[in-house]
């Protein structure tokens, strides 16, 4: 009798790709049906997000933003998957997944408020189906199972999508979440953005599994590994997963192979302590913007001029968003006490009185 390992089914988890590093289509049959405008919009969002990331890092260094987790390198994973969603779909993001919720409808100045630790950043516009970015990296996975089951019960034609990183796939809640969603056949899509490092610990030290995608096998759900620097592949994989979920064919786990160029967060992480410049250079060659730009230029859908327009727009929007964030009234302890319960019990009532007196001075 022999035991079985995933090696026997490894070929099922080959990396899915549509565009190679030169922006050439290598998988024509999987080419998604997107209009020229849609293709340009995807590029626009990726360029916009790259500029936003550069500005956010600089604003953070100036002390004008708070907590920030850089996103450069992950644009294809984040925005390609988001582009496959419908407006009523639910997003349960991790702390790095701010671009998706902004393109889903969160005003940019609120994203900045969230970064500054102001609750105004998570007072979402009515009807916007997003959840406050999660800090505990497995918690959103189990919550997604719940949202997806909730959508199914309410007979909504929508899915719940969630994001975590390769480190998040080590959390117990990751397994519980994909298992629950599978057991309830709930319309959920789980995206693991494998950016190679959980802060400093490489993915090889997270697990003996060769892919994160194969973890779907044990939960009895679909799993796929995607080239996370290829925006079309991520888009197509998510679109297919969404369709399957709504067709009652269950959840999907999507592993995107990606890389964060920057630090884990701006709170003192120094990536040179745990990775080499050779590794950085190697991944820079796979850059999602370069390859998609090449692809679009080949179709005469992109130009330097267009790119500059987006860059200028992004800079303008960011300037305005910072101004709007600055204008937001300061958060105080009275607000905090006021939001603890619907009907404040006696301890909260007393403390509200105390802080109202203090803070109205």
């Amino acid at each position, binding site marked *: 009798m022999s035991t079985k390992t995933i090696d026997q089914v490894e070929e099922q988890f080959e990396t899915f790709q549509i565009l190679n590093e030169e922006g050439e289509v290598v998988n024509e049959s999987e080419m998604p049906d997107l209009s020229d405008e849609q293709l340009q919009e995807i590029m626009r969002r990726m360029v916009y997000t790259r500029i936003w990331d550069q500005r956010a890092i600089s604003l953070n260094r100036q002390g004008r933003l708070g907590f920030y987790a850089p996103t450069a390198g992950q644009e294809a994973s984040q925005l390609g998957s988001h582009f496959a969603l419908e407006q009523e779909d639910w997003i349960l993001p991790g702390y790095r997944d701010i671009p998706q919720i902004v393109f889903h409808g969160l005003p940019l100045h609120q994203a900045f408020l969230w970064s500054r630790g102001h609750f105004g950043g998570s007072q979402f516009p009515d009807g916007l189906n997003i959840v406050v970015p999660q800090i505990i990296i497995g918690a959103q*996975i*189990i919550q*997604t*199972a719940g949202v997806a089951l909730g959508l199914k019960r*309410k007979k909504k034609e929508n899915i719940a999508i969630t994001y975590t990183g390769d480190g998040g796939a080590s959390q117990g809640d990751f397994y*519980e979440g994909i298992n629950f969603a599978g057991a309830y056949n709930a319309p959920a899509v789980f995206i693991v953005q494998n950016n190679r490092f959980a802060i400093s610990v490489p993915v090889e030290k997270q697990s003996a599994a060769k892919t994160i995608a194969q973890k779907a096998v044990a939960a009895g759900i679909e799993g796929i590994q995607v080239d996370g620097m290829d925006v079309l592949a991520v888009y197509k994989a998510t679109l297919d997963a969404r369709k399957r979920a709504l067709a009652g064919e269950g959840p999907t786990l999507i592993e995107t192979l990606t890389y964060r160029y920057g630090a884990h967060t701006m709170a003192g992480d120094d990536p040179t302590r745990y990775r080499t410049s050779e590794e950085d250079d190697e991944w820079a060659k796979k850059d999602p913007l370069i390859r998609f730009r090449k692809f679009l230029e080949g179709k005469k859908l992109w130009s330097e001029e267009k790119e500059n327009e987006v860059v200028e727009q992004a800079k303008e929007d960011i300037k305005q968003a910072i101004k709007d964030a600055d204008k937001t009234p300061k958060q105080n302890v009275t607000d905090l006490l006021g939001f*603890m319960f619907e009907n404040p019990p006696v301890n909260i009532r007393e403390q509200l009185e105390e802080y109202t007196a203090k803070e109205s001075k």
Partner: protein
Amino acid sequence: MGNWTMAQAITDAMRNELNKNEDVLVFGEDVGQNGGVFRVTEGLQKEFGEDRVFDTPLAESGIGGLAIGLALTGHRPVMEIQFFGFVFEVFDSIAGQMSRWRYRSGNKQTMPVTVRSPFGGGVKTPEMHADSLEGLMAQTPGLKVVIPSNPYDAKGLLISAIRDNDPVVFLEHMKLYRSFRQDVPEEEYTIELGKADIKREGKDITIIAYGAMVQASMKAAEELAEEGVEAEVIDLMTVSPFDVETVIASVEKTNRAIVVQEAQKQAGIASQIVAEITERAILSLEAPVLRVTSPDTVYPFAAVEDAWLPNPAIIVEKAKEVINF
């Protein structure tokens, strides 16, 4: 009117709310077909279907996350943790996530989850089943922690908990499930969360208790009465945030108090009550406020449980100590 055990009263509260509101869902390990290991959800799946009353995979953290997600999509989840000793597995969902949801969303998303769970000692369960962990919950701002002491209160409090738009941890003492019956109205009624109940009036000393310790305190009060001491017994019912007004009014009347909890001395509720009495009513006191608790050991194996847990005799002794101070 039914003459019900606390288990039956709790089932009836859930039945009432399942009937009343389509969005109420009851789920947990073994709660469906099996009706729960204590049969508290008995018959509910048959009555309301697998869509409303359902079994979950065996994973407490997943159950908590499921409840949060369901609440976000407009449901009112009543989740069961099979034994409260297993709460550590789901601590993040309850204490880390649900408790802060209203604030973190700037009051735009609510978390109307009821976490039901059996707990409490004296029934000789295996390790990790009986632990009194209400103190851990009570130390978490944003949670309400409710512990009924009889069938009537249990029904009214659970209906209130399910209707509350904030997370409520509802703990059911295992020893009380079937130890006695009480007349319980079949129609619906609510008991306000956050209010204590004076179970016995008295003028000489206030005994503050909750859960199974209310029965022990009532017995102690009877014994004290035989010796001419009239004890007032307050059942907190909601242990966090607790009804400080009722407690202080009573202490100002009796000038003496003891606090009785089944949990270890360092474990929570009683210390908070003593602190509040000290801050608010020290000049009314004729003696220090003493605590009747279990000792500060890990929760013991079954064979020593009876010696370890507080009982009426110890309560009487402690009350006399305060009176004779």
